[in-house]
């Protein structure tokens, strides 16, 4: 993060308060900010009353002046009460989120605990030991991914997501990804059609880990929500001074009412937990934050029963 961004975050935290920054609330939803505004309005009201009272001998002017001062206290007061309500709601959402997340964390933990109990209790025959060790390894990996996702969300909320700035060969990254994900697609009889038209040697500037995460997330989701015997189109091409990556599926599409919420961490986490799917559902939230921090853009277009296209664009790196 740049020095001026750090200073900006510190000022924001000072004016809005830690809670508001953490929950990403707007300034007018934060009690600290409203107290400051209320204070300023009250001081202006008192000073105005004093000066007007001095200049005009007519005592009738005091009535509207007092009314003005009262109003200047009353209105922010109402807004403050509302903002406390919003904070309470934010806390409620946060605890619901914690509930969902702890459930998701418990799944691999219980699998590991049960497998260890079986192995250590001598309940597993020699022929099955490898299978149990594989379950252990798989759930351990799953657990690490979950914890990393959560740490990333926390970093994003605090505005402290640290990104590297390297030249990334997206063409190579996409080719490797498609190769490695083919078995999963084949299992569902899905064809992955790859169309790469970026000139050789062109690269983007950004953090390899997070670009890979976003790139993989789009294809993972497309496979998850695609019907059997369908095609997923993966495109990579130059668009002005950027490279655009697109993944188009023929799934059910995203319902209209969910479109606004698709990059919202609470919405995704809640949906994933309800559907008994693995993961935290935080991938798109993290991808959006990371791609935007790299100077890129991310989005999707979707039609119900036709399918969804997720895309991101990243600025081209200058050639050496």
């Amino acid at each position, binding site marked *: 993060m740049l020095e001026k961004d750090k200073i900006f975050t510190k000022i924001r935290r000072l004016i809005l308060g830690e809670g508001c920054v953490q929950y990403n609330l707007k300034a007018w939803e934060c009690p600290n900010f409203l107290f400051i505004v209320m204070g300023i309005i009250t001081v202006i009201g008192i000073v105005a009353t004093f000066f007007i009272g001095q200049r005009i001998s007519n005592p009738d002017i005091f009535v509207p002046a007092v009314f003005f001062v009262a109003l200047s206290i009353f209105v922010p007061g109402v807004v403050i009460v509302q903002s406390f309500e919003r904070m309470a709601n934010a806390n409620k959402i946060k605890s619901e989120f914690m509930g969902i997340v702890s*459930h998701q964390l418990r799944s691999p933990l219980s699998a590991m605990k049960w497998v260890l109990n079986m192995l250590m209790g001598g309940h597993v025959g020699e022929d099955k030991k490898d299978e149990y060790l594989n379950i252990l390894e798989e759930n351990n990996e799953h657990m690490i991914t979950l914890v990393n996702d959560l740490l990333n969300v926390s970093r994003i909320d605090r505005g402290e997501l640290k990104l590297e700035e390297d030249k990334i060969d997206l063409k190579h990254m996409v080719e490797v990804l498609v190769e490695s994900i083919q078995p999963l697609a084949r299992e569902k009889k899905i064809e992955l059609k790859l169309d790469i038209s970026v000139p050789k040697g062109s690269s983007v500037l950004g953090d390899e880990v997070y670009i890979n995460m976003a790139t993989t997330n789009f294809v993972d989701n497309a496979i998850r929500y695609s019907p059997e015997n369908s095609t997923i189109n993966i495109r990579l091409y130059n668009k002005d001074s950027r490279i655009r990556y697109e993944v188009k599926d023929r799934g059910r599409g995203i319902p209209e009412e969910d479109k606004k919420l698709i990059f919202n961490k609470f919405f995704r986490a809640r949906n994933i937990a309800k559907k008994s799917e693995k993961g935290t559902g935080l991938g798109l939230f993290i991808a959006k934050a990371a791609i935007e921090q790299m100077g890129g853009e991310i989005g999707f277009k979707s039609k119900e029963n036709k399918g969804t296209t997720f895309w991101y664009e990243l600025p081209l790196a200058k050639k050496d």
Partner: protein
Amino acid sequence: MSKKILFIEDEPALQETLTTMLKSGGYEVVSALDGEKGIEFAEKEKPDLIVLDLVLPKKDGFVILEHLKDNEETKNIDVIVLTNLEGAYDIERALNLGAMTYLVKTNHTPEDILKKINKKFET
């Protein structure tokens, strides 16, 4: 004759481990990997006990519980809820719907669960 247990759980690793443990304890185990299959097997197999997860694909555990307890043929089958949901609301809801016991997966090993089931059938 050995007692029959229906285990409704979508996570294959948990299915495998607890099924192995229950079989080693002398029980016959029927496995269902989603809610719809769970209801189907409960009605068809008439198990002596159902071990039920709550977060399941197709139909969740609460819907299954409600369905089982509303159905003359299945309403007397004891149901142990075995889940990772630990909210007071979920526990109360499951018990009100007729679950016999509520167990949290991370707090119990397959050995513990087998012991509890043995105890249930002894009494």
